[in-house]
Each structure stands twice: as structure tokens, then as C-alpha cells.
């Protein structure tokens, strides 16, 4: 399905990003696995991918740093010869009530979750324009649509990602570069392990499908958008949330 394609997954060392990297590799894509600090975990993802007859490399880079991002994209193109799929997945949370939120907490989340998407998108657009094709998939969140108490920084960033997705989709459409967002609901990962039992249960009551999502549930939608099956879809935000937000 993705044979011969080259994908870059930011934050591919853990959680949803890891599931996406593995899913794209299973479909035949060669994958660059970006990480911030977890070198060992990124290596494990690379080793697992190599079992699927796809090639993989790990690349350390802070997505919020332009020099890092440029070097990362250069490495991918040098190593694999093209760059067909970018998945902007790297993200962090620093939750706090608005009235308690510190300026740094706001800035850090915006830098990683929003500016990171901008820098990586800008970075790959040159290569994709030359190729006259490309798929960019941004991992947003349903809270970017609904809002969520305690996450002013994160929600602002995710809503920003949705807007950025639409604008990039419009700017690059004539060059056959398709840009979409996937908005996960409540997915079991390190990020959501931080929640209390009580928070978990109250979340469950809001999910029509009555279960938490798995990272693979998100990865499969990303795979659809990355493949030719998604070739008439651009500028959309697809909710993968068990029906939480309709």
C-alpha cells in the first residue's frame, strides 16, 4: 500500500507516534522515527520496523527548534531519497488552571505542539513541492475543538494546529500536497496514564463506544490518509474518539 514511500513521524518513539510509525512500515513505507530524548525507545521502534522488510532510522531533533528540524529533514532526504509523508505527532502537556498557568508552561506547549508543526511543515514543503506530491498529517486533539478546563495552553495549540492544517491545505493543494488533521479523543498512552482513576471513569461516560481508544485506532486513520485511498481528502479534521465529539 505504501511501498517505496518515505515517512517522517515526529515523536515516533512512544505512544501514538510509535503506533503510526509501525503501521506505516507494515504497509511498506520506510520510516524516519524522530524523538526528543528517548533514544533507546526510538531504537526499539527502528528494530521492530526492520522486521517488516521496511527500512528505518531514528533522528533526534527538537521539533520546536528550526535548525534541528532542517537538519532532520535533510537527513531523511539524504538517507531515503525522498519524503512523501510527514506525520506531525510530537506533543507535550503542561496542564494547569488558567489562573495558575505560568508563562513558561504556556510557551513550552505552544512551541512544541504548534510551532513544531509549522516548522516541520515548512521544512518538508520544499521537498514535496519538488516531488509534486505529499501527505501531511497533523495529530491534533478533540479538545482543540471543544475546549478543556486545565488545558488552556494545549487547547490553544491544538486549535491552532487545526487552523494551520486548513491554511496549509489551501496553499499547497495546487501542488498535490494534501494536508489533514486527525483529532484523537481519549487514547491509552503515557500521556493519559497521568490521569486519576476518577478522571478516567468520568471520561468513559462521555464515550458512546464505551471504551478508551488505542494508539492503533489512530494509526489506522493516519494510514488511510497517507495512502492513495485518501487522495480526495484535504483540509479535514477527522475525529478518532469513539464518538465523543460529534
Amino acid at each position, binding site marked *: 500500500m505504501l511501498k517505496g514511500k518515505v515517512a517522517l513521524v515526529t515523536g515516533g518513539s512512544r505512544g501514538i507516534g510509535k503506533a503510526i510509525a509501525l503501521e506505516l512500515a507494515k504497509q511498506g513505507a520506510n520510516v524516519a522515527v524522530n524523538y526528543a530524548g528517548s533514544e533507546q525507545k526510538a531504537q526499539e521502534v527502528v528494530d521492530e520496523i526492520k522486521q517488516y522488510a521496511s527500512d528505518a532510522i531514528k533522528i533526534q531533533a527538537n521539533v520546536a527548534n528550526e535548525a534541528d528540524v532542517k537538519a532532520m529533514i535533510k537527513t531523511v532526504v539524504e538517507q531515503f531519497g525522498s519524503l512523501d509523508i510527514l506525520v506531525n505527532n510530537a506533543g507535550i502537556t503542561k496542564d494547569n488552571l488558567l489562573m495558575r498557568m505560568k508563562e513558561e508552561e504556556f510557551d513550552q506547549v505552544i512551541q512544541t505542539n504548534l510551532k513544531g508543526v509549522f516548522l516541520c511543515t515548512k521544512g518538508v514543503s*520544499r521537498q514535496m*513541492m*519538488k516531488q509534486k506530491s505529499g501527505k501531511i498529517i497533523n495529530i491534533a486533539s478533540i479538545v482543540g475543538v471543544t475546549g478543556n478546563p486545565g488545558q488552556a495552553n494545549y487547547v490553544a495549540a491544538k486549535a491552532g494546529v487545526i487552523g494551520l492544517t486548513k491554511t496549509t491545505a489551501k*496553499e499547497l493543494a*495546487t*501542488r498535490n500536497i494534501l494536508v489533514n488533521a486527525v483529532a484523537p479523543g481519549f487514547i491509552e498512552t503515557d500521556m493519559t496514564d497521568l490521569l486519576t482513576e476518577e478522571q478516567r471513569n468520568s471520561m468513559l461516560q462521555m464515550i458512546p463506544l464505551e471504551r478508551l481508544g488505542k494508539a492503533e485506532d489512530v494509526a489506522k486513520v493516519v494510514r488511510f490518509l497517507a495512502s492513495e485511498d485518501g487522495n480526495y481528502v484535504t483540509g479535514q479534521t477527522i475525529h478518532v474518539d469513539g464518538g465523543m465529539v460529534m
Partner: protein
Amino acid sequence: MADTFERVKKIVVDRLDVEESKVTMEASFKEDLEADSLDVVELVMELEDEFDTEISDEEAEKIATVGDAVNYINSTL
């Protein structure tokens, strides 16, 4: 100098699909050669490859005519 112009002209003709005679030093990409903003970005990318140079975003924004491109490239050679 003349050589730079010829090389730029060839790229402009290929990329924008315009007649050679229209590509003069004075021709404006957007007004005379019917390029949109993205076409100009792409042209600049191709010129970078052709002349093996890097044109910063700031410099690229100043390029409006074929002559601007030729002069900028000559200044870097």
C-alpha cells in the same frame, strides 16, 4: 551575465510555460508571466538548484522581475 540570463530564461520558460520572447529582463513574474506566488517560490527553488546557491527568504521576496533574479544570481557568483 548573458549566460545567467539564458539559463534563467530556460527555467522560466519550462516552469511557467510561456513563450521565450516574453521572458525579458524587465518582465515581471506575476504581471507579465502570469505566475502566482507559489510559482515564484518554486522558480526560486529551481534557480537555487541550477546555480547551486541559497537564496534566503528575504532575498527571494525582493525578486519580482526576471532581471531581479539574474542580478541577484550574478551578485552571488
